[in-house]
């Protein structure tokens, strides 16, 4: 993006410069080849990893969840320790609907997004008033509250044992979920990609610019007439919808929900995935989710304890040495290589 900028200095004619300005803004939203590669590889999993499609779908779902956190953290600058609240709400909405006979997947997902979005909207007014430790505690507190409710409403949710009796109807009445997870994977990929397109559009929208401004210098935003509270409330709600859809996808594709979807561990894990991959970059959540879940698959196969240790170490190292995550590090390397 700096390339247009450097050539621009040589344009003597203001009319050309104005055209360059428009081209610059449009250019930021242009698709780049690594993005195409990323989604092609994701789609090609169907052929490359036919036996790991369940894991691949998990990565996509976790990636979508992390992307939704990226919207509030990477773009909005709101640190949440309770983002699982919305993931869990979506999962339970989709799961409960299906367990009680409404097993059409797409409408189930819409409902999941709506319920999570409504709660997100309601809590956004609380969240935007707080910062610092109070913000951490309240985001965490809301998730813990819901976790506690789900745990105690054992008769409805099944508590720790999980919600029984979810079975999904064929997608669009045509494609049944199969044992190998092929349908589930394709379904997940399609939904996740659609959500990603929305997030990408948001990233390159007027609101996306407003959020970048807020992240860069929140104090200045009111001085140019922007309302931090209203911006924050909107992005928090949108992110809640997206997290709800991710949760709904998990419930539908695994046909299982337990209280764990609302737990602190899930809130912490999604934060870790995002930061590991790189916050504020749109793809960081997916990269982080892939590395995290594959690493867990391998390491916890050896011993659960070791996994916790490596996870902790990974976090410490990322914070100390790779503040922009794997993707941010790769970008910096690439930029250095280009300059050389």
């Amino acid at each position: 993006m700096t390339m247009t900028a450097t050539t621009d200095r040589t344009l003597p004619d203001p009319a050309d410069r104005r055209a360059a300005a428009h081209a610059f803004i449009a250019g930021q939203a242009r698709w780049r080849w690594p993005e195409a590669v990323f989604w092609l590889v994701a789609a090609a999993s169907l052929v490359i990893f036919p036996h790991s499609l369940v894991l691949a779908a998990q990565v996509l779902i976790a990636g979508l969840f992390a992307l939704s956190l990226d919207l509030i953290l990477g773009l909005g600058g709101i640190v949440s320790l309770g983002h699982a609240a919305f993931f869990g709400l979506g999962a339970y909405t989709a799961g409960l609907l299906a367990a009680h006979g409404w097993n059409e997947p797409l409408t189930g997902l819409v409902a999941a997004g709506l319920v999570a979005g409504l709660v997100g909207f309601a809590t956004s007014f609380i969240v935007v008033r707080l910062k610092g430790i109070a913000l951490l505690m309240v985001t965490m507190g809301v998730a813990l509250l819901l976790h506690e409710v789900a745990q105690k409403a054992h008769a409805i949710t099944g508590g720790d044992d999980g919600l029984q009796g979810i079975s999904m109807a064929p997608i669009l009445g045509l494609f049944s979920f199969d044992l190998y997870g092929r349908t589930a994977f394709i379904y997940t990929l399609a939904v996740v990609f659609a959500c990603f397109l929305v997030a990408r559009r948001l990233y390159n929208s007027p609101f996306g610019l407003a959020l970048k401004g807020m992240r860069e210098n929140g104090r200045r935003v009111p001085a140019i007439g922007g309302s931090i509270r209203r911006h924050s409330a909107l992005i928090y709600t949108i992110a809640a919808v997206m997290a709800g859809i991710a949760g709904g996808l998990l419930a539908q594709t695994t046909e299982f929900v337990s209280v764990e979807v609302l737990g602190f561990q899930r809130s912490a894990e999604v934060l870790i995935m995002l930061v590991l991959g790189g916050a504020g970059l749109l793809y960081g959540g997916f990269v982080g989710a892939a590395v995290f879940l594959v690493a867990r698959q391998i390491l916890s196969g050896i011993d659960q304890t070791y996994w916790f240790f490596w996870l902790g170490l990974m976090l410490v190292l990322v914070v100390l040495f790779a503040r922009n995550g794997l993707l941010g590090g790769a970008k910096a390397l690439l930029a250095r290589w280009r300059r050389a």
Partner: protein
Amino acid sequence: MTSALQTAGLCRNFGALAVTQNVDFVLPVGARQALIGPNGAGKTTFINLLTGLLQPSAGRIRLGGEDITALAPEMRVRRGLVRTFQINTLFPALTPLEAVTLARLEQRGASRRWLGALSGQRAAIDEAYDLLERIGLGADALQETRSLPYGKQRLLEIALALACEPRVLLLDEPAAGVPARESAELFEVIARLPRDLSILFIEHDMELVFRFAERITVLVAGAVLTEGTPAEIASDPQVRQVYLGSAGHG
């Protein structure tokens, strides 16, 4: 003479310390007025009170005919009361084009459109670009703000304020930290702004103050000492004693 901005009995205390004391202040429409006073006189506090960054302990603020004392900072900006900051308060990773476009989007009420492309906001981008061109930042519009030389960042501060369609512009040491030659240029830019815009500026360099201000308000220890034309202020024995005599500002 109608007032663009007016305060009545404005006070602000920090604990037992009164940093603004009963200030009655009038900024006439079209003013080119300077606010001077020794360090710690409460000049920036006064601006912060006017813009809503601080809440007054007592007193009222009126913008045009409207009482704005209780309004949030961004609502004051929407009504045309806009400021710049003494220390650069910019968006380091954004380009000037993006920053000023953002300010235009906020004014147009388009900053929460999240499903349309930014590139579709052609009018806002055009306005932003024209403003940058007018203020002399046209060639730098696409550089990251943090890579701009300091003087140009100061200009961008002013550009951001102008993008908010101010009726009243409060400039908190617009040339702070800029070399003498460049600071005169900066004030030339300010002097060329439309006459219907009312401007109040804080400045330490007395040469600049006497060159560009048509009226001067002297603030000492949070209270207005006196107010008048540059000639009146220059010959005021009180000012000479309290401020010019003892100050020694560089």
